[in-house]
């Protein structure tokens, strides 16, 4: 006759063995996933670094200046092109006071 405690011990041993096998299998799978994710992140990061560098190269101030001048016919802003709203009010006041 098998005694109750012995049955429990055997059951626990089998349970532990199966669980450990499952865990090992699970961890191995996760490790592969991790390695793949790791590689994918590094590749994406490397690509991002290159893209940022390319964007920065294209945004070079000297290049933008050439494009603005030669392709868009843009010119530098002169002080006369910038109006302060307060000065505009003052100018209007002077204009009204002079009765013109």
């Amino acid at each position: 006759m098998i005694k109750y405690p012995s049955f429990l011990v055997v059951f626990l041993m089998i349970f532990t063995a199966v669980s450990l096998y499952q865990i090992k299998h699970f961890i191995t799978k996760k490790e592969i996933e991790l390695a793949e994710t790791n590689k994918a992140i590094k590749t994406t990061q490397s690509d991002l670094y290159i893209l940022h560098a390319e964007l920065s190269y294209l945004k070079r101030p000297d290049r933008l200046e050439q494009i603005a001048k030669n392709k868009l016919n843009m010119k530098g802003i002169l002080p006369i092109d910038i109006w302060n709203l307060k000065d505009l009010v003052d100018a209007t006041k002077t204009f009204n006071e002079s009765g013109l």
Partner: protein
Amino acid sequence: MSFFQFQNNNTQKNDLKMRRLKLLICGALLFIAFTTIGYRTVSLAGLNDKTVKNSFRSVNSKNLIHPFRGNILDRNNNLLATTVNISSLNINPQEVLDVNQTILKLKKIFPKLNREKLLQKLNSNKKHVQILREISPRDHVSLLKLGIEALKIESSKKRIYPNHSLASHVLGNTDIDGKGIAGIEKKFDKVLANGEDISISIHSGIQHITKTLLLEQINQFKAEGGAGIIMDTKNGEIYALVSLPDYNANNYNKLLGNKLFNKATKGIYELGSTLKLITAAVALESNLINENEVFDVSSPLRISSRTIRDYHPLNYAISIPEVVVHSSNIGSAKIAEKLGSSTQLKYLKSLGLMDKLSLELPELGRPQVRTDKKLLTTMTISYGHGISITPTHLASATATIVNNGIRVDPTLLISNSARKNKRIFSKKTSKTMRSIMRLVVSNKNGTAKQAEASGYLVGGKTGTAEKTNPAGGYFKKQNIVTLTSAFPMNNPRFVITVMIDNPKGSKRTAGWVAAPVVNKIVTRIAPILNIKPQTKSSVNFSRNLLKFKIRGKDKGAIL
């Protein structure tokens, strides 16, 4: 039942009880042990994505998030320096099946490859030969598509500077192992090596404008080089730091000589009359000279073996503002005589003009100041001779003068908190100096009239000094011309210091060579910096500025 039999039965019962107790204890211990192991097993089996992510993050965070050396960014987060993976093309000649066919395929993608050299490489006995040090990702894909045998694409890291020569002296460079050897790369090597990014105070656009305009002038006057600094007057943040000639930072290892030399922070020069600003500020600050005192400049001043003369002689006694506006050496020397050597040196020290800058660059020049306390030395220092400083030192001193007298130390880092710096001059002295500096540009007798940028109230001081001869004395026909300026003078926001080394031509003074650069720089950068031009009718136009009488050569009173 005998007594012995009774005793024996009792002992047996006790033994049985004891054994059962032992078995129970062992059973209980085994149960606890297995329950613990079982619990741990079940909990491990219950791993979910969250726990995996957490452990992954804690173990691998460094390797994954920062695989490369950190980037250097400008104040608007534009990339100035970064590291990328590059691929190199290598081949094992022993595995090549058909040399001619391989050469044909390679030439399809890289037409510039030399056939003879390729043939030589492919016929060698080596097992590893490099064909190209760098290939683009597109070429890499093309090579894979062609399916050339024996090819080996190897990956390595490379530090690149997408803006080429922009701020090359500030950024510095790294060696072949990726270690910082100059500039920011060297100063912040540990931080960058840990993969952390660094944002510096440089503004790429303003840096480009300063460089372009300075270079135009250098080319026009066939000068040897120059330097330009644009600095925030409140916190000392440097928006542009240019040293010319400069270089393409991607070719650093192929460069030698003066291109690598940082004229803005390492080169020390006698910056001439720009130092009169300091002499005047010290005179106004100290109680040794009365504000309305005048100095006779009608005849040259002979001290020891030397005669001090003015470039534009005047035949009457002039005030402190007039000394600065007319840039009178005699007037400045007479002010210095009254101040004395100790006061002069004390202020030079407190302005930081006798020490290295505290700037975040390894390339810093140590000023050279004559400290013999002789009268002639005190007098010559007052107009910028016998004192050699870097242009950045001058920018820092100018910022201190216009920033209500509170010392401004230049920095290449963005300051997140306000620094409490020492007061060198009073608010009153600063206001007077700002007004005088404005007159140097706006008055018809001023030496920097060409620096006037309409509406932006530029103020400054010119300096034209003969270049020092390393063998002793000065080169009579070689000048260092400088203009240190600030704008807008009713509430100065930025200091601009421009220095040009040895301009050629008949008009090679600071007023002709350096001043127009400042005018152009201000006009271009003010809209970027959100500084609005002010019209003469504006109530703010001359607010915070004092009026001084500046007389011309004919003694006429001109405001």
